[in-house]
């Protein structure tokens, strides 16, 4: 088991190297540099040249990348080229906001979605099933920024129930959390429904009923336990999708999280900060996926045995 975790974490190393290489060099090659925003009318060509030297822009990309990697090797992500604050510090001041929001929405989403999914699966083919399927399909089809804006218009401007943005107090959580939780609910409920449908056909449920297990326990103990794998996958996917897409919701609600930080860094050509943000987000992303994979072992002894024997991660199709 431990060997499996270690192997998965080691996989991060080539990812970090490749991601940083790709992003650092690509962004460096992109038109425009970080000093574009620092240059003012009054500056003489000499001043600009000095600035370029300060940022090592007179040297080849490989030099800058090497310097960056050297730092990275020592655990130093460098400093933002715009603000001069260390990348690690900028990231960590923003990270709690994103983490809290994603946890809140994952919890709300899961708690809502699983009963909805079971409800729909057990009434497959009825009007109730069609209604929930319709709801989840619409939820999946809505761009999150649009849903966020609609909620803003309704609950922050028309009836001023919640603040329109910012990160102050519990009431500011409501709208962004609801927005992302709705997306999560739609996704997870759909997955729960289809994996429950799959499980409800299984032979071992017939065995359980033949033993005289009450229907409610057949669902809760025998069926749901087996449906967990794909549901977990979706929750994990939702969580990582949230991380990936956090920029959008954070922008809508002026939420000071890592998504917005990355967007700002990329638009300002702040190569060091952008690269650092992407690397750290990738690490988070991989860790979330790893946690989900480890949870599989919890719910399914077959997968646990696979990990123990050093087998590769089971590919679960969502």
């Amino acid at each position: 088991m431990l060997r499996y975790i270690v192997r998965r974490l080691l996989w991060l190393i080539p990812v970090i190297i490749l991601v940083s290489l790709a992003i650092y060099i690509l962004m460096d090659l992109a038109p425009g540099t970080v000093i574009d925003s620092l240059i003012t009318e009054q500056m003489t060509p000499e001043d600009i040249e000095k600035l370029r030297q300060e940022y090592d822009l007179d040297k080849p990309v490989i030099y800058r990348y090497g310097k960056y990697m050297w730092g990275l090797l020592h655990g130093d992500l460098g400093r933002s080229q715009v603000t001069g604050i260390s990348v690690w510090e900028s990231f960590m001041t923003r990270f709690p906001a994103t983490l809290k929001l994603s946890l809140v929405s994952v919890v709300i989403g899961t708690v809502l979605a699983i009963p909805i999914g079971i409800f729909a699966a057990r009434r497959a083919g009825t009007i109730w099933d069609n209604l929930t399927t319709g709801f989840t399909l619409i939820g999946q089809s809505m761009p999150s920024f649009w849903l966020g804006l609609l909620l803003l218009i309704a609950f922050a401007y028309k009836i001023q129930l919640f603040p329109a943005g910012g990160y102050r107090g519990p009431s500011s959580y409501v709208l962004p959390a609801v927005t992302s939780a709705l997306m999560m609910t739609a996704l997870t409920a759909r997955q729960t429904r289809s994996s429950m449908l799959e499980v409800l056909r299984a032979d071992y449920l017939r065995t359980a009923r033949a033993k005289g297990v009450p229907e409610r326990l057949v669902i809760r103990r025998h069926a749901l336990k087996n449906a967990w794998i794909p549901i977990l996958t979706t929750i994990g996917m939702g969580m990582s999708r949230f991380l990936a897409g956090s920029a959008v919701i954070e922008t809508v609600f002026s939420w000071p999280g890592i998504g917005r930080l990355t967007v700002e860094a990329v638009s300002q050509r702040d190569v060091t900060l952008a690269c650092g943000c992407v690397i750290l987000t990738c690490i988070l992303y991989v860790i979330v996926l790893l946690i989900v994979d480890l949870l599989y072992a919890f719910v399914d002894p077959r997968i646990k045995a696979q990990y123990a024997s050093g087998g590769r991660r089971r590919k679960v199709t969502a």
Partner: protein
Amino acid sequence: MTTATNVLVSKKYAKRSNAAEVWHRLKTNKGAIAGFTIICIILAITLYSVFFISYEEVTAINVQNRLQPPSWEHPFGTDDMGRDLFKRTLYGSRYSLLIGLGGVSISLIVGLILGSIAGYFGGLVDDLIMRFSDFLASIPTLLLGMVIVTVLGQSLPNLILAVGVTAIPEFIRITRSSVLVVRNQEFVEAATAIGMSHLGIIFTQVVPNGLSPIIVTVTSRIGAAIIEAASLSFLGFGIPVPHPEWGLLVSEGRNYIRIAPHLTYFPGLFIMVTVFAFNILGDGLRDALDPKLKK
């Protein structure tokens, strides 16, 4: 019977083919019909806009008319530059369709080739391709899209490329697993037994049988690509202004959300309806192609 050799016996017993059977089941699926109808309407809108709405018309500034609420003259109202939002929204449909179809084509082609190679041959090739796919999948999609657009510059083709690249791992995975399923079937062995080559087997046995999950993924992935592109535009990494791309329209509307919320409503609604149509069609296709439903 044997005397009338000028008529093929198989003609005499002609019946519905497999494709016709799927089409028949699709026709009886209300969701799929609804999705298909909406997609046709959107296509019609796009064709109309291509022929009857000019780029100048939707980008020309008319400050006197700015931020008017919806009316008969301007069904969706006007924006901060006084441009008719209705026409701008109709004009914008082409971007979403192009991005959806174009982006998915890119990921489909790359994913199909790499995925089937990985699935059919296995071994080292499989390992290499899957490592590449894992690597690509470990970068959050929106971030990858942002970086690609930033590096290559903001334009429609680059946006399509960005959206396409991010979905490649998904297509590699789906293709690979459906090829794996088919490859281990006995009828593939039977084809080997009659002396068929690898290429022959891939094209006559594996591809036709592994296609269903791929078709379903393509359909629902189009929707996801449209949303992703709109999100990139919304964040300022899309097609440059003043092109009336839907995500960009919502983003512009956001600045006037208090005084002119209609700027936000309509383009967003169009995104949702389009994506919904593709999703619901994908759902219907999945049911129609499901072999379990076959008798």
